[in-house]
């Protein structure tokens, strides 16, 4: 279990009455929840429950048909994904979305794009700020590489890496942006026990050391119960539960819909 006395800040993200439909298919119906600063919130639910769609709404890939998202006190309407990035929202993907043709180092470096501002001419000539900031950001990226223990593969094209390592690199790319809110879409899918343990540790460390707020989707209930401060349960695009892991464990609706009847 988590230490319950951990300091949570004020509400950082608030989703209110979000509804989303593709054509006639309703992906999300009237979903509301809050995320507090420094919190680890897990979104769980069966396949097709609308979990990934919810993350896509938060970082602007999808625009909800109704409802609003309030982030750091600002209500937003139609936001583009790169605007979400500017405001400090980073994420990983269910089906790894790394840049396959680029090396691990370059992939993580792209995470720092928003923090770089050398002019075009300086980049052409690789002088002045362009050169200095490449080196300066390389240092930051190397810290992340050390943190994730992927030093030995930094020059390898990510397309050649095994699945578990790709997931790790993707986390690194998200971390490189030094986000305030990190969205993780099934960070442990397809991993073995050791890899899951490693990944859980990274997530907790990120949360502890950098104070990053984390919203994650995960199917492994053991992991979810261990990691998260709070859990939101979706089923068929509707919210059927919201509370601490122990609340959820005892929630009748959740048990019926998702966990199955316990003996």
């Amino acid at each position, binding site marked *: 279990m988590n230490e319950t006395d951990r300091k949570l800040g004020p509400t950082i993200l608030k989703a209110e009455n979000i509804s989303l439909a*593709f054509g006639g298919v309703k992906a999300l119906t009237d979903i509301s929840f809050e995320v507090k600063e420094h919190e680890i919130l897990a979104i769980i639910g069966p396949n097709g429950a609308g979990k*990934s769609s919810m993350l*896509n709404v938060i970082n602007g*890939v999808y625009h909800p048909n109704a409802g609003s998202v309030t982030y750091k006190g600002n209500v937003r309407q139609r936001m583009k994904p790169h605007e979400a990035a500017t405001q400090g929202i980073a994420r990983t*993907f*269910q*089906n790894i*979305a790394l840049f396959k043709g680029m090396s691990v180092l370059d992939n993580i470096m792209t995470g720092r794009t928003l923090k770089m501002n050398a002019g075009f001419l300086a980049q052409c000539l690789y002088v002045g700020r362009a050169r200095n900031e490449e080196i300066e950001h390389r240092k930051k990226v190397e810290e992340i590489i050390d943190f994730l223990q992927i030093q030995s593969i930094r020059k390898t094209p990510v397309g050649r890496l095994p699945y578990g390592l790709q997931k790790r690199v993707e986390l690194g790319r998200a971390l490189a942006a030094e986000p305030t809110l990190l969205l993780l879409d099934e960070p442990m899918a397809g991993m073995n026990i050791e890899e899951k343990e490693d990944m859980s540790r990274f997530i907790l460390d990120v949360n502890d050391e950098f104070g990053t707020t984390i919203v994650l989707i995960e199917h492994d209930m053991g992991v979810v119960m261990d990691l998260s401060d709070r859990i939101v349960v979706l089923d068929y695009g509707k919210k059927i539960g919201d509370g601490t892991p122990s609340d959820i464990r005892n929630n009748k609706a959740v048990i019926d819909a998702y966990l199955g009847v316990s003996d």
Partner: protein
Amino acid sequence: MGFFVEVLLSGLMAGVLYSLVALGFVLIFKASGVFNFAQGAMVLFAALTFVRLLDILKDSFAPITLSLIITIAMMVMLAMAIERLVLRPLVNQPGISLFMATLGIAYFLDGFGQTLWGSDIYTLDIGIPKGSIFILESVFDGGILVAKEDLVATVIAGLLVVTLAIFFQKTRIGRALRAVADDHQAAQSIGIPLNYIWVIVWTVAGLVALVAGVIWGSKLGVQFSLSLIALKALPVLILGGFESVLGAIVGGLIIGAGEKLSEIYIGPYVGGGIEYWFAYMLALGFLMFRPQGLFGEVHIDRV
């Protein structure tokens, strides 16, 4: 008014032929995801083969039938060769590589056809009536002047287009083709042989090329410029969508009509010759508003 309709009609009739070439593109793109730049070269190759065979067999008992059969056989062999030598080695390569490969096919066919059959201009006469007639004299003052060969061509092309549409929608092979188009792996997993399907579509595309080549060839003479007809059909594709049979038909008509009308009514003000690019600009402008083409489906990016 009569003049306008005359221009419009001639544009639409040219458009049917664009539709025909565009259809060749669409068939192949649907079934194998390949943007086949060699469609124009196939038109030239088919027409050259046909016209030269006609010359060789002119003393036989049925020159046209015989030439047609041999040409069709050659197009089938061509499809098999392409499947074996180009598509199979390149399976699972990115689309751009396959596209480049079809450029290679285009170069090869242009060279091969002319090495085999020569590179002069050959007149092709398979009995399509020449000359012009006036139609609709009761509606418009003085009637509307149309070329007989255009009318015949339109009827043939129209029939072929309808046949193909039915073939695609109603027959077993047509359904298999559409299944392959939707998802290669899924189609393979339910036992549709991919290689066989490819040979069929490329053959059909070859036959479409033959018809287009014969119609165009009897109009302009069989010559190298037939190969460039493909370029005329490309705007039809962006207008109609790469994957839509209906789009190819309607797009062809729009492009054909738009091209002729613009040449007559806008051309004189800007120095003429604008049919060279007008179709492209029309299609491009249209794309800005409807990126998926006339009848294409909107794809939602999933992440």
